[in-house]
């Protein structure tokens, strides 16, 4: 059978399903190309741009003295908590907004309004109401994740095929059941998009959140480094954030693939 497959005429000229091995190779190639461009830029005499070597050296130092691990753990805890709370809340709120015109009319102005407000601006209020402990930091991250993903979840609810909802209703499903058993699975692609964007927003807000009297964390470390104009440390922070974000995003995608296997996909 396998042998025959080799000789089969290529009925479809493009194969869009990536072969996993090839994907990894291309991923790596892309990263190497990126590193090359970076090295090129930093060598070409653009002042103030640190090269990869220096960054690696600094990274090694920060790992060696334990700072990086502490920072990563602190930031990860904040981002993870805020992200999970934000996206989990976004699902029912998105549902309420998509389902009940009243809820939508009441909630939407606020969602839209706060979505455009920079997280930095929320900080004073968060401090006033929540002090300077972990709560306001997590809250700022939570808010960013929530506000990004609620838009997507809401659209997903609006977008659910009406015939499926009807099918559930004639089987006697209550609104709650329809939400849990029809709307959530049917809008999974939107929810995942929301979560992925929410994840980006959560990490992107980390620096702002750690302005609030953080004593450790990647964002805090980067601010400190900025005061000292310590570019290598800033880059170590950026790369750590990027890599952690990437890993969490991959995990989300894995989850998605398990959840949306039912879809017809290219």
């Amino acid at each position, binding site marked *: 059978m396998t042998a025959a497959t080799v000789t089969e005429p290529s009925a479809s000229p493009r194969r869009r399903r990536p072969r996993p091995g090839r994907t990894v190779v291309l991923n790596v190639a892309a990263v190497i190309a990126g590193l090359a461009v970076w090295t090129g830029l930093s060598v070409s005499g653009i002042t103030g741009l640190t090269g990869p070597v220096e960054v690696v050296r600094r990274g090694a130092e920060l790992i060696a003295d334990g700072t990086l691990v502490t920072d990563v753990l602190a930031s990860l805890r904040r981002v993870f908590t805020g992200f999970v709370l934000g996206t989990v809340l976004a699902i029912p709120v998105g549902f309420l907004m998509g389902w009940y015109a009243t809820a939508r009319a009441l909630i939407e102005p606020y969602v839209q309004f706060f979505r455009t407000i920079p997280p930095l601006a929320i900080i004073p209020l968060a401090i006033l109401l929540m002090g300077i402990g972990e709560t306001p930091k997590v809250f700022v991250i939570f808010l960013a994740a929530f506000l990004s993903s609620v838009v997507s979840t809401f659209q997903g609810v609006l977008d659910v095929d009406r*015939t499926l909802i*009807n099918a559930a*209703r*004639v089987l006697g499903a209550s609104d709650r059941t329809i939400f849990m058993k*029809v709307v959530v699975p049917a809008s999974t692609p939107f929810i995942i998009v929301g979560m992925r964007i929410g994840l980006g927003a959560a990490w992107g807000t980390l620096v702002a959140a750690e302005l609030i009297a953080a004593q450790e964390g990647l964002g805090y470390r980067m601010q400190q480094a900025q005061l000292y104009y310590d570019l290598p440390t800033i880059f170590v922070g950026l790369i750590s954030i990027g890599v952690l974000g990437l890993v969490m995003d991959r995990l989300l995608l894995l989850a998605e693939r398990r959840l949306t*296997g*039912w*879809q017809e996909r290219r």
Partner: protein
Amino acid sequence: MIPKISFRNVSKSFPLKGGDFLALDRVDLDIADREFVTVVGPSGCGKSTLMSMAAGLTEPGTGDILLDGAPVAGPGPDRGVIFQQYALFPWLSVRKNVEFGLKLMNLPPDERKRRAEHAIELVGLSDFADALPKTLSGGMKQRCAIARAYAVDPQVLLMDEPFGALDALTRVQLQDQLLDTWSRERRTVMFITHDVDEAVYLANRVVVMAARPGRIHRVIDVDLPYPRTEEVRLSPEFSRIRNEVWHSVYHQAPAA
């Protein structure tokens, strides 16, 4: 006796560019309890719309729709619906699709499982019980939708061309099963089809609809004995009624 389902002077129009489109024009129809009514008519004459109103999914424009004498207030598990477009939940396997309604009835898991198995077997999908809808052929999807409606065993069955995508043999089997269940357990059935033979074979009464605007053209009684068999199908009386239905569908005088 109060009719099971009753359409009273029901009209429905849809907004269209350049004025409303009158999809149903003053429909009056009573379906008695335990009656088997089939609905035939040209494509686009409003059959699906009529059924959707009985299901409580579409509001009538004007007029009333009564269920057991009371106005229909939304859909409910008392009326099982088989949609023309199947409407399977694509993320659930055949079995889970069929169990969907059963779960809402809070049956004990054993009973639920038994009833789902039974319905799946009835439509011949046992080998595909764990397959997802996307891996089913057209006819298999349709059979899954049938099993889902059968499983909850509703008082009223509203079926929109339920056997349209099936090959002739499967179709005959399912027709006979349906008649069998109906006569044993005496459900009320409203059954849309575009197959005149099927309409006559199954029904107590055939409702013939006309298009432009959608309305009831004639209602033809089918005075054939149950159980309906191959013999009935070949009887001259069957042919006569069949021809009458055919004639009234396809040689309608233009709308008044």
